[in-house]
C-alpha cells in the first residue's frame, strides 16, 4: 500500500489555498512560463518562506550568479546572506563561467551536479530545493536526449533524498501546455504555469496548476501580483466559499429617510451598490453612511479613488459631517489614491491590509468605476467578488459607488458586472422636470427585506440628504426620458390590478 501524497505548505500567500495545502511533499514541481512571468521569484520565494517558517533550503542556479540573486531579492526582505551565514541556505552555483573553455566529447552524466546538490542538502539539512532554470542546462549541452535522461535521474535522486523541489523552465511562447524541451511531459508529475499576458493594454499575471499527480488542486487561472517588498501574492478567487453568515441585524444608513426606504436600515453584513451619474449624490451617500457609523460609535474606512482627502473632508463639512473630528475620535480612516497608481490586484491587497489593520465596521469605496478604468473586465469582476466576500466574512457593511456614463438613466458597466454580487442596489438619478434638474432615489433591490419601491425626490442641503415624496406623475425616469403623466392616466394605472368590484 502506498501512502497518500502529503502537502508541504509553501507559505506563498494565497498559493496554498489554490494548491489545496501546498506542493506535493518530497516531489518535484515544474514552474514554467515565459520570460518575466515570475518563475525565479516563485522559486526563490518558495525557499525564503520555507526558511521564515523554520526550514532550510538549497538554491541551484544555472543562470544568475549567487551574488546577483542575493542582490535581486534583497528588496523583498529576504536576507539570503544572513541565512547562508546561519547555515540555513546553500547555493549550488552552476551559473555559466565564460572564462574556461569546455568541450564535450562522448557520453557524460550530471553525476557531479547531483552529488553537489546532495552535499548541500545534507550540509544545511534542507527540506526545500529550487533549481533555476532547466533551459540553461539544455543550452549548456548539445545532447538533449542525454540531458533529459539526466534530469529524470536528478528528479528521482531528489525524491530519494526526500526534498520538495521546484524547477523552473522558460517557454518562448505562451503555449497552453507543454514546454520547449518536452520536460514536463515525462520528467515531473506536477506542473504550474505562470502567465503574464497583455489584455486590453493591461498586464495581467495568472498562475495555473496544470497537474498535480495523485492529489487535488483548484483548477483554472488565478490572478497574482508581485509586491516589490514581499514577492508573489496569489488571489485564490474560487477558493472563496459562500459560507458567510447572514445577519439580521440592521444598521443605519446614516439617513433616517433612507433607513425608512430600506425597511429599517441596511443589514450588518451586506454590500450596497449606489449607482448614479456624476453629481447625483454618491459621495454624499458615502458620507451619510460613515456619519451613521460614527453616530453609532462604529469605525469606518473610506477609500476614495476620485477625490482627494481635502475634497472629501470639505464635502463632508458642507453636508454637516465633521470627518476631521471622526478621525481624531478614531472612528474614521480615509485612504485616497489614484486608481492608476497600482494594478487592481495591488489595490485589493492594500484594501485588505487597511481593513485588517483598522478593523472597521463599515467600508465605503468611492468609486468602483474609477478602479474599473485600470483593470480588465475579468480582473475587475474578480476584484469585486474577492473584496465582497472578504468584507462579508468579517461582518462588515460595504457601500460601493458606481458612476453611470450618461446623465439621464442608463446602467453603468460596473453595475452589470457586479449587480448580482451585491445585496442591495440604490439608484440615484437626475430627473428633468419643467426646465429643472431634480434628483431621484430608489431602492432597486434589497436582499432579504421589503423595501420602498417608489422613485422619490431628494434634496441636498447643509444637513445632508432629505428624501421627499415620490415622483407620482412622472414616468420614464429610469429609462432616461422622464415625462409627466396626466392625472387621469395615473389614476387608471393605479387601479389597473385591483380586483374587479
Amino acid at each position: 500500500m502506498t501512502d497518500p501524497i502529503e502537502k508541504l505548505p509553501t507559505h506563498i500567500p494565497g498559493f496554498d489555498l489554490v494548491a489545496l495545502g501546498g506542493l506535493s511533499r518530497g516531489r518535484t514541481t515544474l514552474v514554467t512560463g515565459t520570460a518575466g512571468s515570475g518563475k525565479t521569484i516563485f522559486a526563490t520565494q518558495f525557499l525564503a518562506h520555507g526558511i521564515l517558517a523554520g526550514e532550510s533550503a538549497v538554491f541551484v542556479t544555472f543562470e544568475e550568479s549567487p551574488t546577483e540573486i542575493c542582490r535581486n531579492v534583497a528588496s523583498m526582505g529576504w536576507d539570503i546572506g544572513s541565512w547562508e551565514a546561519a547555515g540555513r541556505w546553500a547555493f549550488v552555483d552552476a551559473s555559466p563561467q565564460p572564462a574556461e573553455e569546455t568541450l564535450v566529447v562522448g557520453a557524460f552524466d550530471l553525476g557531479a551536479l547531483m552529488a553537489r546538490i546532495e552535499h548541500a542538502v545534507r550540509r544545511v539539512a534542507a527540506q526545500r530545493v529550487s533549481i533555476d532554470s532547466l533551459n540553461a542546462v539544455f543550452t549548456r549541452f548539445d545532447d538533449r536526449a542525454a540531458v533529459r535522461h539526466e534530469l529524470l535521474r536528478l528528479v528521482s535522486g531528489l525524491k530519494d533524498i526526500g526534498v520538495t523541489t521546484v524547477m523552473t523552465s522558460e517557454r518562448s511562447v505562451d503555449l497552453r501546455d507543454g514546454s520547449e524541451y518536452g520536460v514536463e511531459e515525462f520528467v515531473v508529475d506536477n506542473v504550474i504555469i505562470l502567465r503574464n499576458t497583455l489584455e486590453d493594454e493591461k498586464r495581467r499575471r495568472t498562475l495555473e496548476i496544470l497537474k498535480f499527480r495523485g492529489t487535488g488542486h483548484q483548477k483554472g487561472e488565478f490572478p497574482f501580483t508581485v509586491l516589490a517588498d514581499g514577492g508573489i501574492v496569489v488571489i485564490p478567487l474560487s477558493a472563496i466559499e459562500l459560507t458567510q453568515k447572514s445577519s439580521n441585524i440592521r444598521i443605519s444608513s446614516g439617513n433616517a429617510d433612507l433607513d425608512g426606504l430600506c425597511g429599517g436600515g441596511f443589514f450588518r453584513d451586506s454590500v450596497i451598490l449606489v449607482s448614479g451619474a456624476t453629481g447625483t449624490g454618491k459621495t454624499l451617500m458615502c458620507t451619510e453612511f460613515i456619519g451613521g457609523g460614527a453616530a453609532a460609535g462604529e469605525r469606518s474606512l473610506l477609500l476614495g479613488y476620485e477625490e482627494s482627502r481635502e475634497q472629501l473632508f470639505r464635502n463632508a463639512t458642507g453636508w454637516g459631517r465633521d470627518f476631521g473630528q471622526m478621525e481624531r475620535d478614531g472612528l474614521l480612516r480615509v485612504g485616497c489614491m489614484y486608481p492608476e497608481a497600482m494594478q487592481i490586484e495591488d489595490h485589493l491587497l492594500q484594501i485588505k491590509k487597511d481593513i485588517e489593520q483598522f478593523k472597521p465596521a463599515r467600508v465605503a469605496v468611492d468609486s468602483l468605476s474609477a478602479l474599473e478604468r485600470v483593470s480588465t473586465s475579468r480582473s475587475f469582476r474578480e476584484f469585486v467578488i474577492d473584496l465582497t466576500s472578504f468584507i462579508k466574512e468579517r461582518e462588515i457593511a460595504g457601500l460601493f459607488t458606481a458612476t453611470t456614463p450618461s446623465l439621464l438613466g442608463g446602467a453603468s458597466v460596473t453595475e452589470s458586472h457586479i449587480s448580482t454580487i451585491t445585496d442591495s442596489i440604490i439608484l440615484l438619478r437626475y430627473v428633468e422636470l419643467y426646465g429643472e434638474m431634480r434628483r431621484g432615489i430608489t431602492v432597486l433591490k434589497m436582499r432579504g427585506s421589503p423595501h420602498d419601491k417608489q422613485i422619490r425626490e431628494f434634496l441636498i442641503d447643509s444637513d445632508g440628504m432629505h428624501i421627499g415624496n415620490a415622483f407620482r406623475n412622472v414616468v420614464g425616469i429610469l429609462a432616461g426620458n422622464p415625462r409627466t403623466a396626466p392625472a387621469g392616466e395615473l389614476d387608471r394605472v393605479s387601479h389597473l390590478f385591483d380586483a374587479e368590484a
Partner: protein
Amino acid sequence: MTPLGNDSSSAPNGAAFVLTLYVTGQGARSQRAVANLRSLCDGLGELCELTVIDVLERPQMAEDERVLATPTVIRRLPLPPLRLIGDMSERDKVVRWLDLPLPVAAAEGEA
C-alpha cells in the same frame, strides 16, 4: 582558481601537464574515462600528473570547481585552464583539445 595557481609553467614536481579527472562512482563510464585518460598520461611519463576525484566521496571539490557533468577533466597546467567533458573515448580529440604532445592521426577538419 587553480590550486597550483602560480605563474610557473610546470608543477612543483616538474610536470608540465596537470590534469584532474572528476568521476561519479565506480561505474563503467567512470572506469572507462579513468582508463582512457590514464593511458594517455602514461604515454607522457613524468610530464603528466593525473589526479582522479570521485565526486560522491568529495562533493565539496566538485562544488569548488563548479563541476556539473562527469566525467570532466580539468587541465590546470599549462595555462589557460581547459575543461573536457565525456568518457574520453575519442582519443585523438582528447589529445588535440588538451594539446598533449602525443601523436594523432591526420587532422580531419580539426583545428
